């Protein structure tokens, strides 16, 4: 195990954990983006180049923007931010549940007889190979994902649209309204 893995893991976990505990939504969103970038670094470390860049492009480039826009569009007043009385109980419950899950998962991972790769040489997948797989074995999945993304796009637009219909074909006035200085 290399130092690089430990650093990547610590940065990713740390920024994710801090992001989940911060009050300031923008800060936590930015830290989460750092955590996603850390995951991309993990993919790069593991030799999955294409996936790493895809993760960067999708998460750091696109999802981050959607998240930040959503945060800004739903700005709350300060009063809303006040902690509700049941929040502490919920946090304790969440920590207990999360800790229990963590314990179970750690126990399972450490004790399970995991298969170890027979060959020491790492497998690498070239982009060409991936493209052929995508168009060959996984062509159906590719089509379905395309349909899913289209549906998601339309659904998101319908959900977020205000329902207020602009009259069709209205373009901003071609001629700027005359502004005359009253003198």
């Amino acid at each position, binding site marked *: 195990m290399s130092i690089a893995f430990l650093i990547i893991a610590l940065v990713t976990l740390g920024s994710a954990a801090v992001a989940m505990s911060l009050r300031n939504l923008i800060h936590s969103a*930015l830290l989460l983006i750092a955590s996603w970038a850390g995951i991309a670094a993990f993919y790069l470390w593991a030799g999955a180049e294409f996936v790493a860049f895809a993760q960067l492009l999708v998460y*750091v480039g696109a999802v981050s923007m959607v998240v*930040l826009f959503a945060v800004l569009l739903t700005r709350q007043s300060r009063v809303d931010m006040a902690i509700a009385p049941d929040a502490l109980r919920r946090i304790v419950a969440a920590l207990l549940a999360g800790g229990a899950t963590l314990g179970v998962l750690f126990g399972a991972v450490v004790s399970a007889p995991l298969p170890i790769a027979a060959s020491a040489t*790492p497998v690498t997948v070239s982009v060409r190979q991936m493209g052929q797989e995508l168009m060959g074995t996984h062509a159906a999945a590719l089509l379905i994902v395309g349909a899913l993304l289209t549906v998601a796009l339309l659904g998101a637009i319908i959900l977020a649209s205000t329902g207020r219909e602009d009259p069709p074909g209205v373009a901003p006035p*071609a001629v700027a309204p005359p502004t005359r200085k009253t003198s």
Partner: protein
Amino acid sequence: MTLVQLSRVTPGVSDWFFQSLSSPFIAAAGDSRLERLPIIARDLLTSRLPEPWRWWLNSLLAILVVLFGFAILFALLTLVERKVLGRVQNRPGPNRTGLPFTKLRLFGLGQPLADGIKMLTKEDIVPRSADKLLHFLAPVALLAFSILTFAVLPFGRNLVPVELDAGILYFFAAGAGTELAVFMAGWASRNKYSLLAAMRALAQLISYELPLLLSFVPVIMMAGTLSTTGVVEAQAGWKFGFIPHWHVLTPWGFAAFVIFMVSALAESNRSPFDLPEAESELIAGHLTEYSGFKYALFFMAEYFGMCALSAMAVTLFLGGWRAPLPFLEIVPSYVWFALKLFALLFGFIWIRATFPRLRIDQLTRFAWKFLVPMALINLGTAAFWSLTCNWSGPLQLARWAIALALVAGPFVVMGRKLSRDYAPRTYRYA
């Protein structure tokens, strides 16, 4: 530069750099001494060193050469831009500042230096309520992301800093980080005008990211690779001995090149798409609360982004470092690359001097209703082009005619539709 022959960050193979060194740069048989000059110069410096050190020093040299090369290019570009703008507007441009401590003026060559000193010595003002950390991080992140994109550009034959299998994807993944920096700048300033301007800038960047990414998909389709060197390889050779196989010289390639350059203009916030920081109308958009060296960093990142996108356009469409004619191959490849890059950068400056600024609604409408559909149709044109690659004789003419029609038809139809809403302005009181 090739110096870093580590092609892939593959873990476990801890001796990758020894492997890469056991096969040092092998010059192609026809390479002239001039062509290999960067490699020879590097070997002169580092060949005496033991193995791991040599690899580290080679990488460091590559990074330094790229960084300093583009930093000097940035300094010169600021001067050239002002000179060209002056020339277009029939005035001399900066011509007073010469070499320090001498009487030499050299057409204002000292201007970048003077500007740099001015920027460095200005007071760095941070608003009291600003988010100090993010306010500081925004320009740094922006510059870092735009420098990262230089890593995969092939500057010449065998001169690519990092040879990546998914190089083009890397380029645009690293470029995606700039949006984040713009947001950070706008939000950390705690100024509603900055924030609004940042949101406008983001809307613009996101809108134009789409045609930018879609426009080069045909190139990847044709070249069959995502690596930058592979794309340059695919454009080798000449038809009839004098027409280079550059992508821009095909119908789909020309359309894609134009879409790419227009989107690149918008992505690098250049006029006529410089709404986010329209200096004559808004204050400076999301840069309002920045001053001194941080402002200079934003400025630098903008120019770096412009250079990187132009270099990418050269690689994708203009044959990369390849010479336009066979007998011109005696000129080294990096010179060709630089010449093409300068030509595109000059185009950027020329456009800035010529076109008026767009309005925000015109801007987004242009992206969504014109560029994106054009890029999608262009994908179909490229598919047609690759399906008919073995047509010959009169069929070849038909192939060209159909492809040209596929490009020109939608252009005319959509252009008409787009411009119908915008009748020529009539000025009643002017």
